């Protein structure tokens, strides 16, 4: 669906490249995540791919056609959910959606359906200026998907949302993937990436440090551990490596002592993998 090869980009007046020869490919019907801290080049990559930034080097192929060869019809195929809300605050939510959707030939579901799905139907006729940040973020999301795009670009789509509304948005993203849509997600939220993405690229300082499915990355780069808390000392859990468990005397004696309060295995998080590979925190 989308193939990026050796992409480099430098902002005017910058001494260093923001993107340093990154390559990746997104398959149709998959959620591809770009995971990295602020300033790592995630949003820059997206802006290049949806043709807002020019002056890059490398190749970008969208649906077997080089990106520069695409005209305005490219924007009928994509939906973009920017990180910052972008609505006319003097218009209502419904007026905003009607305006933006009026430029697309395809409207499979009306705005009320999506407003209802993200919990905004009761506020459809209120001015956006009266909306909270979370409401604006949800409206942003609806604006991006209203024309039923083939590829959806999401930049931090759950930032500013409470867990319930973040869950609603993530549910829709999964449904879109299941219906064959391709989703390019950038985030520094490892929890979202882990939950949603079929494949993630860990981006740091303009380079992709690792690219695989979240589960494989965690297995490959994480440490498998068993954590035990004892009834006499619940504040100090003990950690044992999973692969040597049968040979550890201390673990065996704890088992025999009948003092175990909790015992569970723990796999690495994407954040831990990221820190291990890049030496940097995600947020």
């Amino acid at each position, binding site marked *: 669906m989308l193939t990026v090869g050796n992409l480099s980009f430098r902002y005017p007046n910058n001494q260093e490249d923001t993107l340093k020869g990154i390559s990746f490919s997104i398959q149709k019907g998959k959620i591809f995540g770009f995971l990295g801290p602020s300033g790592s080049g995630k949003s820059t990559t997206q802006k290049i791919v949806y043709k807002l930034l020019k002056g890059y080097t490398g190749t970008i192929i969208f649906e077997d056609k080089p990106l520069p060869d695409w005209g*305005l019809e490219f924007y009928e195929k*994509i939906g973009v959910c920017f990180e*910052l809300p972008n609505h006319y605050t*003097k*218009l209502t939510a419904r007026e905003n959606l009607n305006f*933006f959707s009026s430029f697309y030939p395809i409207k499979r579901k009306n705005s009320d359906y999506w407003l209802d799905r993200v919990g905004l139907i009761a506020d459809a006729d209120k001015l956006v200026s009266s909306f909270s940040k979370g409401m604006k973020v949800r409206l942003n999301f609806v604006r991006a998907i209203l024309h039923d795009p083939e590829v959806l670009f999401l930049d931090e789509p759950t930032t500013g949302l409470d867990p319930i509304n973040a869950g609603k948005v993530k549910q829709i993203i999964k449904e879109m993937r299941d219906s064959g849509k391709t989703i390019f997600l950038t985030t520094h939220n490892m929890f979202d990436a882990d939950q949603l993405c079929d494949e993630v690229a860990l981006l740091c300082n303009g380079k992709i440090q690792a690219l695989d499915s979240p589960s494989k990355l965690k297995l490959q780069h994480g440490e498998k551990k068993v954590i035990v808390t004892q009834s006499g000392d619940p504040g100090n859990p003990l950690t044992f490596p999973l692969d040597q468990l049968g040979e550890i005397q201390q673990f065996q004696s704890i088992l025999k002592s009948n003092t175990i309060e909790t015992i569970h295995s723990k796999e690495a998080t994407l954040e831990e993998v990221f820190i291990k590979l890049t030496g940097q925190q995600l947020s």
Partner: protein
Amino acid sequence: MNTLVPFLRLDSTLLFRNKLFHISAIITIIYIGLFYLLKPLGNTHIPLIVLIYNDPVIMGYMFAGVLWLFDKNQNTIQAISVLPISKSNYIISKVITLSILAVILSFIMALSAVGIRFNPIHLTISVFLSSVMFCCLGFIIGSISSNFLAFLMKSLPVFILFATPVTVLFDGVNPVYFILVPSLGSILVMQSAFVAVEVISIQLGYIHMCFWTAISIFVCYRITIPRLL
């Protein structure tokens, strides 16, 4: 054209909701009151032309810059940049909306000041094209300004420069002195809508006004449109 209609509808709504329409209406009412006060003194042509030039024509400059900055602050320019439309429609619709408003308000002012004793063709063309020129200028200055204060600071020299040809309305001032000032043509054609002037003056006015309007559209496309992407 199909994609221009939603923009025209949007811009009309935004002019109303941002109270820019109300501001124009209030200022026009004040001017109408002023004309009634000036009527007993005789010749109201010069103040009428000056006020039409000042508002609604120059008002187009301010509104264009303000609408651009509103959109920039609301990040809506970013959202428009990924729509499957020609980005120039964003500018064209605002210019058309503001210029139509300018023509309507100028007619109200003219009718209240001199009745039907004016040339509606000269007035319509001069106000419309001048408004187009000033709207483009507003977009140019707005798009290179980071905020409203910066926009106002940059506007001051523009206003001073563009106001200088108003002096040709007074006897004895040769228009040729202001030949390089883009607003000269607007003033000359606007003047011909209310008073009898030499044909050469009208011709010069039209050529000058059309030339500078075309230049302003061209510069607006080169400077402002790339900032939409």
